[in-house]
């Protein structure tokens, strides 16, 4: 089919460039420059969708972003589909595939339409009043039924293959809206040297005026004037013009978020071009030139396909050369619709009648219409619209008499609503203008000005001078010169109009006169809400759902407000508006996500030894942002087998472990020791240079915050280690106290977590393996005793060699500069492997330390555990006058008896490995809620001891040594005996080799 409704000589589409597309499987043709809407109308297609609740047939209301009805599904292929696309803004491209929504089996025959038959049963909020009996039917019957009815289009079901991107931008002036006022302001700012961004949601600039074929600028058409402006703006270096770019959110301190649609209009986008781009613009000044949105008239059947806004019809004609009908009726309460009617008439479209709701003498343009032979009836209204899938005729009532007109389209206008969305989002206060009966920008909250239609400036002359002075404000220019204003002829100011329902849909007319189309909210629904006591406009909105659809009430909110006000007998400003929220129009999730997906969702931190572990086929576990080697399965081993082997071998020979992720902080300065004294529970004054100590850090509340081994490298220099996950917060915590509580201390902190790779070698053969690689460090047991540190060289590079153990075996933690980590590791591996050393991962590390009763902060403690609870009282220096946490520890509950205490647990059957997190009771078979005594924090199979080992936090645990407690699981209850946390080598001889 080719567009039979094109009118020669009209429109801006390139008729030389035909484009084919399909709608509901049928193939149509349009032209480059069409929107899906204009192309469908050109082909005489009005019926494009079904409403949400009543499934009523719907067509196009508008030609722009405010569209509530014409929502379709668009897809390029099965991974690239998108629901609820407004046909009025979707640009046509070759091969576009569109589907109508919310209908079954077909758009013309939709079973759901029975809802419309029984619509009397479904007034606003009906579901709150029913579906309650019988109770059981709710889950089985009613709810599934309600949920099935949900939604319009279908969600995509496959991962989105497209790219998105982000740009932070900074400018002196952001102008939102590229209509006449935005363009005028921008051209004034051209060549100012100030950086300006101009954005408009449309593909072309000057839209508002482009559909105006009437107004003359110094004798020339409006477009001539527009094109001059556009030329100036486009050619100005200091102005960045962003079309297809919607400013959707106005945030604090003049940050405005824009969504640019980069490829949505292209038939075959470049593969790596982003589909959409997010702009986060920080502007010194903002000018809002967002225009005005036309309102429909509220009357019976105003939702039928073929009924649309007057300005939409004019736009389809002027910009796309499309006639929305052959015989078009007009229903208006404002003059701009006359202009539209005359434009249609001049294009050869029949306009049998203009119905004007207003009484009194005709305006000039009314007379003009008459002279052109168009019948004008005022003080009249449309009583009814006939036709189901398309308008067929309309019944007009005029002072009691009725007349029927055959029409195939009806255009309406109740007036224009200034677009206050962004102004209001900027936290500006809207003000009611009694004279023109509309809301306008009132007090501003940010560096921002509104101009043009969105500011209620109706005449072009005023608009231009307003735009010029705003631009001067925006660029801080002191220019005084009067802006030169072209001579404007035949202008039809867009003032006046009506809000609310007209006579035909008055309070006692039970007709279906729609206010909010998509959600099927009628005038009577709003009156019902008020009747039921929903007097706040916010309640009316939520009870009727008016303004809550995808168009967010751009055409309907004022009508709803006026009808509610009338029912309440209040003034409109008394009732007030609902809150404008972002986004101005819907924005893809992908645009917000932009680069942050897949690999870039979050940084993945890897150590310098990571690749080695990968080569060895290690399994990894995420720990904070890090990937850590978990265990090293050998041919077909599962985790259990691998860990058993790693444990056994490490205790028998040796094991090598990558501990690089440990946090490290260099504490330097004359007061370093004193600083450590205040931040850790331990005392550091007496720690000798070259010695190590296990330290515990509390928060002010006395609960364990972090722990780690600390080495003293010099009088004034400590090498502090922290848990992997705790590193950033510990450094922040230290800086906080240093800067704000103890500024008197002369200490500096530097993170060295990533300066050092850490290779832990543990086991009886550890010394023999690494000794030959080390220079300038005396390795003899008394020269390098347990818990000491030396600086020297290994494999020719600097090392900080820690003699310490987190396994209970003789152990060394070799710190080497990260970029040598892999090389040193390989060298150690080359020596260790032949004598049977194994690599082990975090799981084996956990088992080995558990056998020794060493805690893991975050596993055996959870932020409610004190050092005393954890059995670490020995690490608290009582003598110190103060340390962070000392006072907190003195609070009654932290000293009370029966606190959870860390103990060991033996499974009495000698074989059950308890589940971590399992709860502990003191009764065998608890039935019903029981008194929980604690829970298992760590639990493993100990290959070395050939028995399970477990740690638990048990109320008053240390006083229960030897007692039997119970661990109830789903099917059975395990018996456990409370024991010491140290399971292996109580006297601690092994660390000496």
């Amino acid at each position, binding site marked *: 089919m080719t567009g039979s409704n094109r009118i020669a000589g009209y429109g801006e589409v390139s008729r030389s460039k035909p484009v084919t597309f399909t709608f509901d499987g049928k193939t149509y043709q349009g032209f480059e420059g069409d929107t899906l809407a204009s192309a469908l109308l050109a082909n005489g297609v009005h019926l494009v969708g079904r409403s949400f609740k009543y499934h009523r047939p719907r067509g196009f209301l508008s030609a722009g972003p405010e569209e509530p009805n014409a929502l379709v599904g668009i897809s390029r292929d099965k991974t690239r589909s998108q629901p609820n696309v407004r046909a009025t803004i979707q640009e046509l491209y070759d091969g576009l595939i569109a589907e109508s929504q919310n209908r079954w089996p077909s758009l013309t025959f939709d079973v759901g339409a029975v809802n419309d038959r029984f619509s009397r049963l479904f007034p606003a909020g009906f579901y709150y009043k029913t579906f309650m009996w019988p109770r059981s039917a709710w889950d089985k019957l009613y709810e599934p039924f309600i949920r099935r009815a949900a939604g319009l289009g279908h969600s995509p079901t496959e991962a989105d293959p497209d*790219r998105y*991107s*982000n*740009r*932070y*931008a*900074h400018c002196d002036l952001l102008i939102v809206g590229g209509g006449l006022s935005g363009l005028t302001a921008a051209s004034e700012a051209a060549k100012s040297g100030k950086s300006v961004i101009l954005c408009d949601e449309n593909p072309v600039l000057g839209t508002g005026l482009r559909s105006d074929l009437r107004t003359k600028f110094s004798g020339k058409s409006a477009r001539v004037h527009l094109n001059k402006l556009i030329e100036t703006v486009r050619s100005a270096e200091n102005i960045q013009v962003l079309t297809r770019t919607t400013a959707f959110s106005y945030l604090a301190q003049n940050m405005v978020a824009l969504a640019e649609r980069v490829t949505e209009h292209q038939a075959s986008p470049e593969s*790596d071009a*982003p589909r959409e*781009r997010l702009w*986060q613009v920080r502007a010194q000044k903002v000018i809002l030139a967002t225009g005005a949105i036309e309102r429909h008239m509220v009357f019976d059947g105003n939702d039928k396909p073929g009924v649309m806004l007057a300005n939409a019809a004019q736009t389809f004609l002027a910009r796309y050369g499309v006639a929305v009908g052959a015989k078009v009726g007009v229903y208006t309460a404002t003059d701009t619709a006359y202009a539209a009617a005359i434009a249609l008439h001049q294009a050869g479209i029949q306009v049998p009648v203009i119905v004007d709701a207003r009484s009194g003498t005709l305006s000039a343009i009314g007379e003009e219409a008459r002279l052109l032979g168009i019948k004008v009836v005022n003080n009249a209204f449309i009583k009814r619209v006939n036709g189901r899938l398309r308008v067929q005729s309309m019944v007009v009532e005029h002072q009691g008499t009725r007349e029927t007109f055959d029409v195939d389209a009806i255009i309406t206008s109740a007036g224009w609503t200034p677009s206050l969305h962004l102004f209001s989002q900027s936290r500006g206060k809207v003000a009611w203008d009694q004279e023109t009966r509309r809301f306008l920008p009132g007090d501003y909250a940010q560096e921002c000005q509104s101009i043009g239609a969105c500011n209620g400036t109706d005449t072009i002359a005023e608009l231009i001078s307003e735009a010029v002075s705003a631009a001067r404000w925006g660029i801080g220019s002191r220019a005084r010169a009067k802006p030169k204003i072209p001579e404007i002829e035949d202008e039809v100011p867009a003032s006046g109009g009506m809000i609310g329902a007209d006579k035909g849909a008055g309070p006692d007319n039970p007709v279906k006169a729609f206010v909010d189309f998509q959600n099927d909210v009628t005038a009577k629904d709003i009156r019902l809400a008020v009747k039921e006591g929903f007097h706040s406009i916010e309640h009316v909105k939520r009870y009727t759902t008016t303004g809550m659809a995808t168009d967010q009430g751009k055409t309907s909110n004022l009508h709803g407000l006026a009808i509610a006000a009338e029912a309440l007998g209040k003034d409109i400003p008394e009732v007030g508006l609902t809150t404008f929220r972002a986004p101005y129009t819907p924005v893809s999730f992908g645009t917000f996500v932009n*680069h*942050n997906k897949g*690999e*870039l969702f979050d*940084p*993945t931190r*890897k*150590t*310098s030894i990571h690749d080695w572990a990968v080569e*060895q086929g290690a399994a990894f576990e995420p720990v904070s*942002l*890090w990937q850590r080697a978990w265990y090293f399965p*050998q*041919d077909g081993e599962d985790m259990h087998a691998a860990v058993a082997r790693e444990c056994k071998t490490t205790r028998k020979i040796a094991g090598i472990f990558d501990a690089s992720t440990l946090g490290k902080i*260099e504490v*330097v*300065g*004359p007061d370093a020791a004193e600083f450590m004294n205040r931040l850790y529970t331990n005392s550091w004054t007496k720690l000798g240079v070259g010695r190590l100590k296990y330290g515990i850090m509390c928060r002010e509340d006395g609960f364990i915050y972090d722990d780690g081994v600390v080495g003293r490298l010099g009088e*004034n*220099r400590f090498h502090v280690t922290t848990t992997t996950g705790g590193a950033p917060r510990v450094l922040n915590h230290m800086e906080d106290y240093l800067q704000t509580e103890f500024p008197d201390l002369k200490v*500096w902190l*530097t*993170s*060295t*977590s*990533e*300066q*050092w790779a850490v290779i832990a070698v543990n086991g009886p053969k550890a010394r023999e393996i690494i000794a*030959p*690689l080390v220079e300038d460090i005396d390795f003899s047991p008394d020269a390098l005793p347990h818990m000491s540190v030396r600086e020297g060289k*290994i*494999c*020719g*590079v600097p090392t900080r060699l820690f003699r310490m153990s987190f396994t209970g075996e003789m152990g060394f933690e070799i710190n*080497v*500069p*990260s*970029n*040598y980590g*892999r*090389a*040193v590791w390989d*060298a150690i591996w*080359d*020596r*260790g*492997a*032949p004598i049977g050393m194994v*690599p082990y991962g975090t799981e084996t590390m956990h088992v080995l330390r558990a056998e020794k009763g060493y805690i893991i902060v975050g596993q055996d403690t959870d932020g409610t555990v004190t050092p005393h609870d954890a059995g670490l009282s020995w690490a608290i220096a009582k003598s110190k006058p103060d340390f962070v946490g000392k006072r907190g520890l003195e609070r009654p509950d932290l000293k009370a008896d029966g606190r959870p205490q860390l103990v060991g647990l033996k499974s009495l059957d000698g074989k059950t490995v308890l589940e971590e997190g399992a709860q502990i009771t003191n009764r065998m078979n608890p039935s019903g809620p029981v008194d929980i005594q604690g829970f298992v924090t760590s639990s493993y199979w100990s290959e070395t001891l050939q028995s399970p080992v477990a740690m638990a936090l048990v109320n008053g645990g240390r006083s229960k040594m030897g007692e039997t407690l119970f661990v109830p699981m789903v099917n059975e209850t395990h018996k456990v005996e409370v024991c010491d946390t140290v399971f292996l080598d109580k006297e601690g001889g092994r660390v000496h080799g």
Partner: protein
Amino acid sequence: MAKAASKTNTKPAVATFAGPLDGKRMARDSVSLELAAPCSRTALRADNKSLAAVSKVVGVALPKKANQSASTESRHALWLGPDEWLILDFASSDNPIVPEPDDSKYSAVDVTHRNVAINVEGASAEAVLAAGCPRDLRVAAFPVGSCCRTVFGKAEIILWRRDETTFHVECWRSYANYVWGFLADAANDAG
């Protein structure tokens, strides 16, 4: 299975240097990414009173204001905070460049291996960085020679503008692949 060692020598060769981005390079029409030349780095801390003295030790007059950097031939001092500088020396690939203090005037910690640097160069360098860095990087606001610690996507970076179209982007070692990946993704759009 864990491969056994090939050889078992006692005196191994000196360990070789291996960074996370070794050999990486990427070029688009108007921007290129590449691993910056190797250099030695020191995290320097000192308080105002001793600046003059410490400047002598460092060999560069330490800048006193935000975003300022100071340079000699090969050595650069980047202001990071009121008492904090990053010292870079491209003449030395890897050894401590500022001696540990004998007195308590300052703190010098070698962080050569902690950081990795990427050069972002080309007409679109600024735009590429603007994909992840919320700072105003226009030359007027961030002139040649400016430096700062800031964020890029979900990573912390140190940014240093070496000329109008060249940025030195430094981050912690384990973030290097993320930062590189983000820059590359941004270059696809802005490059």
